[in-house]
């Protein structure tokens, strides 16, 4: 009965107003519409680590795109486009690549951006990035013959070079001043000086609560092209962007509904229906590659050191169960039939997909497990209870493994403990683990060059440490493929092999909505970036 409630509450208005009048209070500044040149944004979490090279955290990538620029951007078709680069020449059968910088690029401290800065930045990034390591392994020399020219002398042609320099998967190849880029890649940088469209306001940062950026007046956007993901002209319409960290989802929803905030990056699944009903709030899916859920095996110890056991569990996976638990029953928000490449991207294919799409039969799974040699070994499943989406995956996974007749020990803890325990290579009796759950952004699984969880390089691989020499060969073959058709062919082989080796169980793809006030326009696709955003007064 909303009318009655309003009338009842209105009854107290006079008294309360009298009270505020006595105290001489004005209407709170935070509740007033913010100035049209100031954007108030609620990020997914605090920017705990501000160096975008040392961490792979997505929130740091978003912070990074505000401060730093890239030589190449990625458009909505996932093609690299020159950004800081004016253009490039590919010569000597692809073995010499010359990139020319645009004129007039400046750092936030006023210095000119030079090719030397870019070379140092590429080297630091490449020390941390898997694709960067491949690039440098294929590079004989990386030079800066003059202030505007970067030259790669390659051992062989590397068509992925521009994608590597422009990819938005973490860590991103951001350009930094040489003195900053010379920081050890295992140590965080001390100066947040970039050449991007916004400057970092160090004096206004309150760790865990607030981050502020202001427009960089000397930023020179590209003169050509259209804004598309991280490519195109970065024209800024705001003076300030304030990130307000609001850890409580209900409070964040209320602040957005009330107009105290303009944009909430990741509204939680339970609050999305309420926000959709609010006519002042717009909700949309910014990233069509979504988030892909996986159950990662520990390949070093029983029972999941046995590929036949891992393969048997493919028959137990019902991706819809996992996705419903994470985001609800609205089918527009998730997809099943998700293989080892995100649906809707260039390399997605049907090879081996019957392992996931054939009719589910738990009795057959039990028989297959027994035939594979499963003898009741303990399966330690580590679950992060402080992340609702990860907890949901783990709960469904626990149920699946239990129904399949496995001896499951469900360890519910916080994410901080999960990331520590998953680093253990010990058997479960000595504090090790058997399986954990996580999400990867679709962008981070879009091809074998960036997909860490598809690597098969044993002890050097991502947590779980699968050894799949053939997979590594196929990855190399993918790098060497001359064109997209060639890459697709290799991707089919990779997926076929993945369904045999099962480095992890694919659990589905879901789409994270973003929510913003109706007065906001130019909200970009992909992830939070602020250069094209406009706010009405």
């Amino acid at each position, binding site marked *: 009965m909303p009318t009655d409630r309003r009338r009842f509450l209105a009854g107290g208005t006079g008294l309360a107003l009298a009270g505020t009048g006595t105290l001489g209070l004005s209407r*709170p500044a935070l509740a007033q519409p913010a100035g049209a040149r100031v954007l108030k944004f609620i990020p997914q979490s605090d920017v705990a680590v501000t160096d975008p090279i040392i961490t792979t955290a997505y929130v740091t990538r978003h912070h990074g795109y505000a401060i730093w620029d890239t030589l190449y951007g990625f458009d909505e078709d996932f093609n690299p486009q020159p950004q800081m680069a004016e253009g490039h020449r590919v010569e000597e059968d692809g073995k010499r690549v010359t990139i020319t910088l645009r004129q007039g690029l400046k750092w936030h401290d006023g210095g000119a951006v030079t090719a030397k800065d870019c070379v140092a930045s590429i080297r630091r990034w490449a020390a941390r990035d898997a694709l960067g390591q491949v690039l440098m392994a294929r590079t004989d020399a990386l030079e800066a013959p003059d202030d505007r020219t970067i030259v790669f002398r390659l051992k062989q042609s590397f068509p992925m070079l521009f994608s590597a320099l422009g990819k938005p998967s973490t860590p991103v190849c951001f350009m930094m001043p040489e003195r900053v880029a010379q920081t050890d890649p*295992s140590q965080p940088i001390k100066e947040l000086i970039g050449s991007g469209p916004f400057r970092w306001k160090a004096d206004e940062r309150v760790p*865990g609560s607030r981050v502020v950026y202001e427009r960089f007046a000397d930023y020179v956007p590209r003169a050509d092209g259209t804004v598309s993901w991280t490519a195109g002209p970065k024209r800024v319409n705001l003076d300030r962007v304030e990130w307000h960290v609001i850890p409580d989802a209900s409070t964040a929803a209320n602040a957005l509904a*009330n107009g105290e905030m303009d944009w909430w990056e990741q509204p939680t699944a339970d609050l999305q229906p309420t926000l959709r009903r609010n006519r002042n709030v717009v909700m949309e899916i910014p990233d069509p590659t979504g988030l892909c859920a996986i159950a990662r095996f520990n390949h070093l110890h029983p029972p999941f050191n046995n590929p036949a056991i891992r393969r048997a569990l493919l028959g137990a996976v019902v991706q819809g169960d996992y996705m419903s638990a994470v985001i609800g029953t609205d089918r527009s928000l998730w997809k099943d039939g998700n293989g080892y490449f995100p649906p809707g991207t260039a390399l997605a294919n049907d090879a081996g997909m019957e392992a996931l799409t054939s009719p589910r039969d738990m009795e057959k799974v039990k028989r297959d497990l027994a035939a594979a040699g499963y003898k009741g070994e303990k399966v330690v499943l580590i679950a992060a209870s402080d992340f609702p989406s990860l907890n949901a995956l783990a709960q469904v996974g626990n149920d699946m493994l239990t129904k399949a007749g496995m001896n499951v020990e469900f360890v519910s803890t916080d994410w901080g403990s999960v990331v520590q325990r998953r680093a253990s290579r010990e058997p479960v009796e000595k504090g090790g683990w058997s399986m954990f759950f996580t999400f990867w952004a679709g962008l981070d699984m879009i091809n074998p060059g960036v997909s860490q969880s598809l690597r098969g390089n044993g002890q050097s691989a991502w947590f779980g440490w699968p050894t799949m020499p053939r997979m590594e060969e196929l990855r190399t073959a993918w790098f060497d493929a001359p064109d997209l058709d060639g890459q697709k062919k290799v991707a089919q082989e990779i997926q076929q092999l993945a369904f045999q080796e099962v480095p992890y169980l694919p659990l589905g793809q879901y789409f994270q909505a973003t929510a913003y006030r109706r007065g906001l326009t130019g909200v970009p696709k992909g992830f939070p970036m602020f250069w094209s955003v406009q706010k009405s007064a």
Partner: protein
Amino acid sequence: MFAYALRRIVATIPVMAVVALFVFSLLYISPGDPAAVIAGDQATPADVERIRASLGLDRPYLVRFGDWVWQIVHGDLGTSIFTNLPVSTMIAQRIEPTLSLMVITLILAVCIAVPMGVVAAWKQGTWIDRAVMAFAVLGFSVPVFVVGYLLAYVFALELDWLPVQGYTPFARGIGPWFQNLILPAVALGGVYIALIARITRATMLEVLQQDYIRTARAKGVGQRGILFLHALKNAAVPIVTVIGIGVALLIGGAVVTESVFAIPGLGRLTVDAILRRDYPVIQGVILLFSFTYVLVNLVIDLLYTLFDPRIRY
């Protein structure tokens, strides 16, 4: 009394040493790895190892404890693993919101709870007494976050009188500062009001039975004078004790309240630090909380002498 206060302050040193040892050891044996959190989910184990080594987290327990104690002795609480800022700077950034919240809650609670308790004792057995006790039970029973959400819904969303969240520093004006703190203080104060009101009522009931109260009545002292001058002063010692104990409640409650109302205070700093395993920050904040609690107890002990002249140190 000065010598007593000095002795008590000196006595806090071994207490703080035990707290420091306990906190450091607990964090050392508890699971979690800040290097893994810094590196992010997509980092390889080798990346995590390199970061761990660069942070010195692979050093033995005694070496790390020794370094930390050495820093503390030199007045340095260390540096945050994540922000690279001194812990003292981070605490300084966060202390004002928490202190503001606690002071307003304390004032609000004492101003409401003490008269409530006094009136309940005076009107013992009447509907007023029962209403006060019902309120006290409610205050104890309803969690802080539930009260917080209800207040935000009514006063911020429906009536649009107050902001949903945030904090405005005192330097920017008492009005905005107070507006941001009203709802959190009311939400946090519920339990505190209930506690003080109950103890005030119980103590007042005992005091009101005393002979000197009967004598005061016989001499024609008015009801207000009896309640607030004669009875309340004699009932003050247990009330002040409970107010002191309640500071611990406030510290605990501030963690939840600051999260619900997005106040950048020490409570949220603590939670964030624990979730990330930012050891120097956790250690620094807990030391500060412990020291505050010891100090509050000392102040309470000294206040006894004001209310009861028989107490001498």
